[in-house]
């Protein structure tokens, strides 16, 4: 019989209480695991931004357009390796409430600059050839049930065709996956030419440009070169690294990180109090026994360690089960037909969770452990 066996026996003496404390811990770590995944997904745009990519937008605001002539001029700027342009389309399929990211792009340069989209050469080829072809991300395709080969009507909430209609027909030529697990797969891309020739607003404007520099060291130089190039023209530009643009955009929504962190902290506070109290009580109930153990020759430090081992065990078991449940939940959410950024749980967040479990276990156990350590045999045996 080892002291580990004693710890186990102590843990399981009151099954109901063990279950309740484990359950509270379980819930807190499930909340932690799930919300952390959300937080990571929100930051994914920033995390996955390529160092060597820049965004060129209209200086007034990125919702203002640029003339397409800018595109050709940027191509020849020194330090620019590749450039592409994008137009926001405001697309929706059947339900105007279910907007998704849909952009008109120049496919060839688009796939060159943005290598985050995984397409087979055959799929890429098929897209380049089909003027009405679009490529859709896995997630958006799942949401609407699109398959390769489908011909689908998509509305724009901004643009109209020359005949006044707001509907465009497209062929789904490929469904892409993200290169990274967290890459966005909620977007749809189609030919700029198709867009430019059919919409009624007057053509040859673009929304913004994506630029790949020859090397991240050249970024600053390229930023200045592009903005200088268009200074004092009717459409001045504002060029910035992709990461800065993405970060600013996320921050516009509000401080979501703070909200999620507060909730997680609140959840941990709850279990801290519940589990801590439960530990204090369960040790108090055992006063007599601890006294007996001391008379049998168990040293005080040994008893101290056993109490801490008990609380750490509760935190670890409940916590790991909670993380497991969070994983299941994340999987469930990711496969649901709703548009969310991809949720994942990575090694770092698991590692952090385990550190928190250890800390919680030690904090909740420390008071009863010290009480047990200090317990005087005579009072322990007389207090019944």
């Amino acid at each position, binding site marked *: 019989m080892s002291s580990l066996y004693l710890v186990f026996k102590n843990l399981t003496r009151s099954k109901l209480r063990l279950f309740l404390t484990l359950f*509270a811990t379980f819930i807190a770590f499930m909340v932690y695991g799930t919300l952390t995944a959300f937080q990571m997904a929100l930051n994914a745009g920033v995390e996955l931004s390529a160092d060597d990519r820049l965004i060129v937008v209209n200086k*007034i605001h990125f919702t203002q357009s640029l003339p397409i002539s800018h595109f050709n001029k940027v191509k020849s700027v020194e330090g620019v390796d590749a450039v592409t342009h994008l137009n926001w389309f405001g697309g929706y399929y059947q339900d105007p*409430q279910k907007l998704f990211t849909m952009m008109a792009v120049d496919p060839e340069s688009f796939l060159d600059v943005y290598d985050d989209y995984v397409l087979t050469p055959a799929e890429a080829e098929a897209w380049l050839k089909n003027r009405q072809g679009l490529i859709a991300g896995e997630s958006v395709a799942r949401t609407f049930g699109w398959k390769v080969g489908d011909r689908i009507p998509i509305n724009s*909430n901004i643009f109209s065709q020359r005949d006044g209609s707001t509907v465009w027909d497209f062929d789904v030529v490929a469904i892409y996956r993200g290169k990274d697990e967290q890459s966005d797969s909620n977007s749809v891309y189609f030919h700029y030419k198709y867009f430019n020739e059919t919409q009624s607003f007057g053509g040859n404007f673009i929304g913004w440009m994506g630029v790949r520099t020859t090397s991240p060291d050249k970024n600053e130089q390229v930023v200045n070169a592009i903005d200088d190039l268009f200074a004092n023209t009717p459409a001045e530009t504002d060029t910035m690294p992709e990461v800065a643009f993405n970060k600013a955009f996320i921050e*516009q929504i509000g401080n979501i990180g703070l909200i999620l962190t507060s909730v997680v902290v609140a959840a941990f*506070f*709850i*279990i801290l109090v*519940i589990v801590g109290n439960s530990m204090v009580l369960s040790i108090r109930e055992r006063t007599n026994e601890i006294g007996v153990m001391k008379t049998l020759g168990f040293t005080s430090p040994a008893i101290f360690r056993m109490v801490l081992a008990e609380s750490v065990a509760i935190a670890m078991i409940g916590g790991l089960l909670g993380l497991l449940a969070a994983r299941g939940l994340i999987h469930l959410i990711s496969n649901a037909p709703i548009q969310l950024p991809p949720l994942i749980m990575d090694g770092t967040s698991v590692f952090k969770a385990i550190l928190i479990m250890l800390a919680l276990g030690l904090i909740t156990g420390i008071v009863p452990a010290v009480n047990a350590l200090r317990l005087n045999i005579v009072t322990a045996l007389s207090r*019944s």
Partner: protein
Amino acid sequence: MGSLLSQIWTVIVMNIRSLPKRLWMSLAAVFAVSVVVAVLLSFLAMANGFEQTLAGTGSEKIGIISRKGSRSELNSTVSRDNINILATAPGIARDADNNPVYSAELYVIVNGIKRTTQTEVNLPLRGISLGGFELRDTVEIVAGRQFEPGRNELIVGQGVLAEFDGFELGREVRFGKTTWKVVGVFSTGGSAFESELWADALTVQTQFQRGTTFQTMRVLLEEPGNIEGIKQLAEDDPRMNLDVETEAAYFAEQGSALRGIVVFGWGLSIVMALGALAGALNTMYTSVASRGTEIATLRAIGFSNMSAFFGTLAESIVLSIIGGIVGALVSYLFLDGVTASTLGASFSQVVFDFQMSPQLFKNGIILALIIGLVGGVFPAWRAARLPVTLAFKNSM
């Protein structure tokens, strides 16, 4: 049986009086419930504040005409021709000179700097004609003066001044190549319009190369809520592809943008409530165990097991309601009235306040009550079934 009620009452009073003996355990339950309620109410107050702000923005007296399916002013376009035709529609109120009261407006987005984070955010710049002021009777210039048509002059909403940098009265602001001067500050009584910058519509049209198009048309309705005449005209003309709504309906829809937050807040709180429930059960089982002799003694004296049941249940409910009230008060004290801003449906910042309401408060208390009920009923059942012989057995 009257005596059953008095029995139950006696036991309830006794249990509650003895709460201080189980102080820490009871506080743990109270604390857990209060945290859950505070989390719930924070989310609800956020969504409520946002919804109230946008609900307060729209008026029943104003009709808004936009491109079909655009769902936001930013996406919409309405041509000068269409505006001229619609101005003749029946149901539009007329001014003293018998001209229809309407305003053709533009809505473009410019950059602002959010004060709290010093990051760039989207701010709406509304191009508005003087007719637009006739429509909006709540507008008041609180500092400076009105812009002069034809000049690059801006007036800014109070919400903009509170949340964003760079638009102080008298300041010059650059949008691309053009320079504008802030000449006035306006208030609209707390609506989303206060998060906007306003300028002369025709000037905005020129400076932002919008040709002769506008984005929305607003009309003053003869009879509040009645848009039928305009709707009819728009539908009868095949050249028009326009939606007609009251402004109230338009903004109410935008206010529902944070509904997801409500669902998320409830989901999260319910999951966390399960954790708090574990705490409540733990507390109450411990309470029953520590009161075992008392319960059995009362039973021996002749008290019914119902009194043990309800006494325990009441204790649990009292604890959780205290927790609920504490949680609600904390979120009220710390969050009610806190100003925040987020991206609204028109892709621009909407400034709003967290708003608590009696209804939300009630929701929080109901959640607490459910935790108390469920957390009390099982331990209460155990209390009711404790053997009376326990009263004789404490001589261990």
